[in-house]
């Protein structure tokens, strides 16, 4: 924490009551607008175009034709109220426009005005609104106060997915020249350099060599961290934060130790040195496709047989749910393995088969809990049983640590709360939103800290890890309380002891 924040950190609630409504509480909060070059690098207009009102409506029409689900979401809300108190940003800010239904209505009102008969004839009666500057301003603010975590959709009796609505709104805004600096600058870096960080090949190689030295210093064992190794069996695609940030890099060391101990011949690619695909956050299928193609290219160039994803939440959604349509067919990969596979599936399988051995007492100084990352929890699976995405990370943690406690079940599994920084909002210009949005997770954490002596929380998403490291101190928790799951594996794995 540098400067004292100019806003109040929300206090922990005693009865988990709903916040008092404060109209416009977050009306001042919006991310930096992209510079023209950030937009044009992605093929979007540099600045707000002439006649943007009609162009926005046209784009909405285009999306409605392509995406039937979007039309259903916009048509089917009955205002039952089930979603209203389910959003972490609403809970943390009390701004009624952060109720999922109100957020949806920002787009729904425009949809009704231009695409429904009632809205065309009697807009005032059906909550239909013209596409005006005020509406656009609200879109820019409040569709960037949605982390697309989809918790509200779990509780909606109609299954309306606010994330899809927020993605559509962001896509429309990009198409009229109103993008965010954070997301669009990052996507530009992926196209130019290969990752979100802008980490060039020589820096990547230097970083990986440094990790080799560190592990050798610590363990006396040479564990390789290969880059662009042709003929490797496995291409590891991991978030670039794993090369750069704490505690992410400790997770990367864990993956490398697992591969080493299991005798798996692996590499990362400098061309596809990024698992993240921020194009999902801005709702751009074209960009998502372009980013995903880098992985296909790298897999072909290196001649690998398997593709494995590191700890990254939304990347696993893109990989698990969309990779085949975005960058398939993957017929050149080994059919014996899932295409693609998650690093946790790999580690779990090796543990089950006794191919790696873990000494959980190495982590006896810790009591762990686990934060389910929203995209993994609500949009993917791991392994071949229902709920595997909840079971496998916990089983890997329990194999690495003796003491594990789950948080309140209303805040885990499919009901997990977002860390507060997902969906393209992990930027300093949204710090107030990020801190306030972390409230429900911080409350659940406080409960297990106070009542069960939890010392650490593990996560499997680069955004979650960075977000928690940044916001936890505001709630009285040390920043190093957040750890990577493979950091625990790294501490517990027995190297060089194979039978």
């Amino acid at each position, binding site marked *: *924490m*540098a*400067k004292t924040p100019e806003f109040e950190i929300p206090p922990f609630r005693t009865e988990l009551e709903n916040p008092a409504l404060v109209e416009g509480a977050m009306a001042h909060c919006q991310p*930096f607008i992209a510079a023209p070059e950030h937009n044009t690098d992605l093929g979007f207009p540099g600045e707000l175009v002439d006649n943007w009102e009609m162009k926005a409506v046209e784009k909405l029409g285009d999306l409605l034709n392509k995406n039937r689900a979007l039309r259903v979401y916009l048509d089917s809300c009955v205002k039952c109220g089930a979603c209203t108190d389910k959003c972490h940003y609403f809970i943390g800010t009390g701004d009624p426009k952060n109720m999922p239904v109100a957020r949806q209505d920002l787009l729904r009102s425009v949809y009704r005005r231009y695409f429904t008969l009632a809205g065309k004839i009697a807009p005032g009666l059906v909550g239909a609104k013209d596409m005006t500057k005020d509406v656009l301003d609200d879109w820019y603010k409040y569709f960037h106060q949605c982390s697309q975590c989809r918790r509200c959709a779990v509780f909606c009796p109609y299954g309306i997915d606010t994330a899809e609505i927020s993605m559509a709104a962001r896509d429309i805004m990009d198409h009229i020249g109103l993008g965010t*600096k*954070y997301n669009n*600058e*990052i996507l530009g*870096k992926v196209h130019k350099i290969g*990752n*979100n*960080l*802008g*980490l*060039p090949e*020589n*820096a990547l190689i*230097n*970083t990986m060599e*440094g*990790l080799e030295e*560190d592990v050798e210093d610590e363990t006396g064992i040479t564990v390789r961290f290969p880059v662009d190794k042709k003929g490797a069996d496995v291409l590891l695609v991991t*978030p*670039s*934060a794993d*090369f*750069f*940030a*704490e505690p*992410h*890099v400790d997770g990367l060391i864990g993956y490398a130790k697992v591969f080493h101990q299991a005798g798996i011949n692996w590499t990362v690619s400098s061309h596809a040195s990024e698992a*993240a695909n921020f194009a999902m956050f801005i709702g751009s299928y074209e960009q998502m496709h372009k980013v995903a193609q880098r992985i296909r290219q790298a897999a072909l160039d290196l001649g690998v047989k398997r593709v494995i994803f590191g700890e*990254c939440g939304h990347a696993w959604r893109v990989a698990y749910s969309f990779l085949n349509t975005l960058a398939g067919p993957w017929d050149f990969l080994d059919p014996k393995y899932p295409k693609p596979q998650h690093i946790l599936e790999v580690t779990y399988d090796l543990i089950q088969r006794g191919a790696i051995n873990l000494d959980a007492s190495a982590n006896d100084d810790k009591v762990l809990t686990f934060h389910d990352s929203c995209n993994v929890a609500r949009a993917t699976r791991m392994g071949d049983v229902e709920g595997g995405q909840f079971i496998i990370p916990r089983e890997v943690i329990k194999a690495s640590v003796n003491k594990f406690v789950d948080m309140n079940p209303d805040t885990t599994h499919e009901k997990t709360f977002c860390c507060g920084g997902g969906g393209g909002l*992990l930027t*300093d*210009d949204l710090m107030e939103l990020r801190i306030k949005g972390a409230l429900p997770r911080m409350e659940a954490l406080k409960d297990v800290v106070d009542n069960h002596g939890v010392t650490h929380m593990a996560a499997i998403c*680069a*955004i979650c*890890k*960075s977000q928690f490291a*940044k916001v936890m101190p505001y709630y009285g928790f040390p*920043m*190093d309380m957040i750890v990577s799951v493979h950091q625990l594996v790294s501490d517990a794995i027995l190297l060089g002891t194979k039978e």
Partner: protein
Amino acid sequence: MAYEVNGKSFESDEEGYLIDIGSWNEELADLIAKDEEIDMTDEHWEVVNFLREYYNEYQIAPAVRVLVKAVKKKLGADKGSNKYLYELFPYGPAKQACKIAGLPKPTGCV
């Protein structure tokens, strides 16, 4: 936005990161540090100078771990920790120290 040093103006982005990294000088670094409520000590300068050296070679700031290792080498084992770097740069060594060093902000999930 812009910084003013000795009547000369240095353009920065919305968050105070210098636009032209080549225009950086030590007086400017002092001014940026002041804006960040940091009093530059020799230890701060060691970090800032290392960041600039690394950037010149690799066109990116070093990973936190690399920075910790370098600080350990230069300032001693007791100071070779992420925690110590946060004591120097409370908003995070990567972002705050980069700003003072006139380097672009690391982007992505960091």
